[in-house]
């Protein structure tokens, strides 16, 4: 896997410039601009790319109320991982029946909170976790998460969670002996996948395991949760999701008609719906290079650079001869650098730098370090 290369756009139309400038004049800086029409567009596109798949938005990507409202109106499902995420859905009066609880490790209180909310689907990946559900066995539906290691995903989620393929049959048969029914399998091949090859391979493996198991178990497995991994367009290459999902669609065609397919998209849906607007607040020449300090950084909206290994496409509003520069965030820490080798034209204090595709794992993972004011969330 190669390090992600950042895309930089130079220049902007007069209309774009005045759009960003007027928002900063009105609301200050930094800003996160939410465009619900983009979210809707992404949701519809993914629905079209994955027909007959129930989409559960991974709230963790951006647990923001306006985004959740839009998804609620689109009748999306929600993938929750904590009691806090349930609380935000409760405030929207989303029915628990439209949610799945996908955290493989839960406390008894997490389980009870979820059941009280009405979320009855849980994910496990080992027998200890399974036993936690035994007191609630009549009420819950259980998915077993299987791990398929992915080499081309940017974030390998299979290291921390998921049982191996070898363990699947044993866990399912043991569950049956304990009086617990496992209703299907789930997997997560990782995030920001370059191709859908891993999805396809995992679908085929799960299909074969489920068909084989269904010859042995009393109640059949009928649900396959194909997780997420649908890519955001960080290179601004106009990813064709219909094309990306074509092999997945073909793989899903090979499943029995009466199976239910779930997916947990987060990044793909929300990334392009949020744009970050920052302002240069300081500049200097260090080690012979221009340094620009902006008012948001890796402890804030750019936190995904650290936690998510994401290099967001940036836009400077002016064109001109560029030189290799450093773009740094506002905190006192030296790690707070967004890019150490970025080609930038000469910029001035007060100039704006725009971050695109900044909806997923950005504001969600920011910290309160230095008690800097967080970027204001503006609904367009």
């Amino acid at each position, binding site marked *: 896997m190669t390090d992600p290369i950042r895309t930089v756009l130079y220049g902007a139309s007069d209309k774009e410039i005045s759009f960003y400038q007027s928002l900063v004049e009105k609301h200050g800086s930094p800003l996160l601009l939410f465009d619900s029409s983009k979210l809707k567009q992404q949701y519809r596109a993914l629905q079209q790319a994955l027909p007959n798949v129930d989409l559960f938005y991974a709230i963790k990507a951006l647990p923001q109320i306006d985004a959740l409202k839009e998804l609620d109106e689109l009748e999306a499902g929600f993938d929750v991982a904590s009691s806090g995420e349930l*609380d935000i859905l*409760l*405030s929207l*009066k989303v*029915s*628990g*029946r439209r949610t799945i609880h996908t955290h493989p490790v839960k406390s008894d209180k997490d389980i*009870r909170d979820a*059941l*009280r*909310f*009405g*979320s*009855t*689907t849980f994910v496990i990946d080992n027998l200890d976790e399974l036993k936690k559900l035994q*007191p*609630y*066995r*009549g*009420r*819950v*539906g259980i998915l077993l998460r299987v791990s398929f290691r992915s080499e081309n995903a940017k974030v390998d989620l299979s290291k921390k969670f998921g049982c191996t393929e070898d363990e699947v049959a044993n866990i399912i048969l043991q569950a049956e002996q304990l009086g617990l029914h496992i*209703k299907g399998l789930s997997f997560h091949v990782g995030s920001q996948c370059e191709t859908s090859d891993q999805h396809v391979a995992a679908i085929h493996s799960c299909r074969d395991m489920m068909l084989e198991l269904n010859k042995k178990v009393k109640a059949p497995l009928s649900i396959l949760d194909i997780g997420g991994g649908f890519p955001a367009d960080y290179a601004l290459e106009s990813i064709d999701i219909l094309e990306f999902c074509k092999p997945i669609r073909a793989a899903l065609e090979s499943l029995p008609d009466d199976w239910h397919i779930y997916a947990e998209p987060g990044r793909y849906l929300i990334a392009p719906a949020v744009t970050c607007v920052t302002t240069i607040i300081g500049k200097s020449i260090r080690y012979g290079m221009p340094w620009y300090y902006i008012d948001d950084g890796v402890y804030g909206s750019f936190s995904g650079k650290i936690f998510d290994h994401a290099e967001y496409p940036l836009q400077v509003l002016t064109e001109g001869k560029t030189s290799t520069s450093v773009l740094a965030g506002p905190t006192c820490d030296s790690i707070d650098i967004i890019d150490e080798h970025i080609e930038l034209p000469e910029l001035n204090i007060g100039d704006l730098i725009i971050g695109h595709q900044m909806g997923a794992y950005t504001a969600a993972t920011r910290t309160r370090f230095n008690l800097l004011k967080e970027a204001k969330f503006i609904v367009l």
Partner: protein
Amino acid sequence: MKYFKETLYDAVCQEFRVDKMYFEQKTEHQHLMIFHNAMLGRVMTLDGIVQTTEADEFMYHEMLTHVPILAHGAVKKLLIIGGGDGGILREVLKHESIDVTQVEIDKAVIDMAIEYLPKHSDSAYDNPRANIVIDDGMAFVKNCSEKFDVIIVDGTDPIGPGEVLFTEDFYAQCKNCLNEGGVIVTQNGVPFLQIEEVKNTYQRLNQHYTDATFYTVAVPTYYGGLMTLAWATNNAELRNVSLDTLEQRFKSANLNSRYYNPAIHLAAFALPQYIVNQLD
């Protein structure tokens, strides 16, 4: 909201058409609704679970109330824990010789029920024989110096605000509030789908009472068939009162009931084997 879908079980759910929303309250941790449904009348739900409907509440309230009272035969003081909708209070007050104390944790529930579910309490809250205490049920029984002949626990699902009312400690404290030969009855879920509740409650009651069992009532909107009502006392004779005696008490009480009668009272203690198997 156009339809209410119950969220109790993963694999099945019952759906109600919402014909008119009367009341909806959403706090940080709970979601309460009262709406009208053409078939069931007013329906109250809490956290996605049906609590009561006007059409079938009589089955539940009459059985939870009249079975212990007529079995005992000489109830003077009765304690209700929970029951904010007023249905139990209404039924208890039909027995003219009984003074009743009701402990409800949240006055707002009573106020809301009086306004939006008026048929449940049917003015019972105005009756001078009713002493209403706003307190935590557990705290009340712990600190209570009074004794009662019957305790009726009308709580919510064990996953939720009524959780403490299913604990062994609570059952033990209740024993201290019962007169000699008194009886406690509690709502205990639908065992076909929640068999653990029967097992747990039986084991907990059995620690503190010499005669613990269940009796049943089938409430249509509590999906899953029979509902169990837990029964615990130190007077085993209470569930063997003869049909003749019950008939006399029933006649003199003049209850005007729609579900309860002495024959179904006795029959309700006959348990299907899948429940009996949990009692050991």
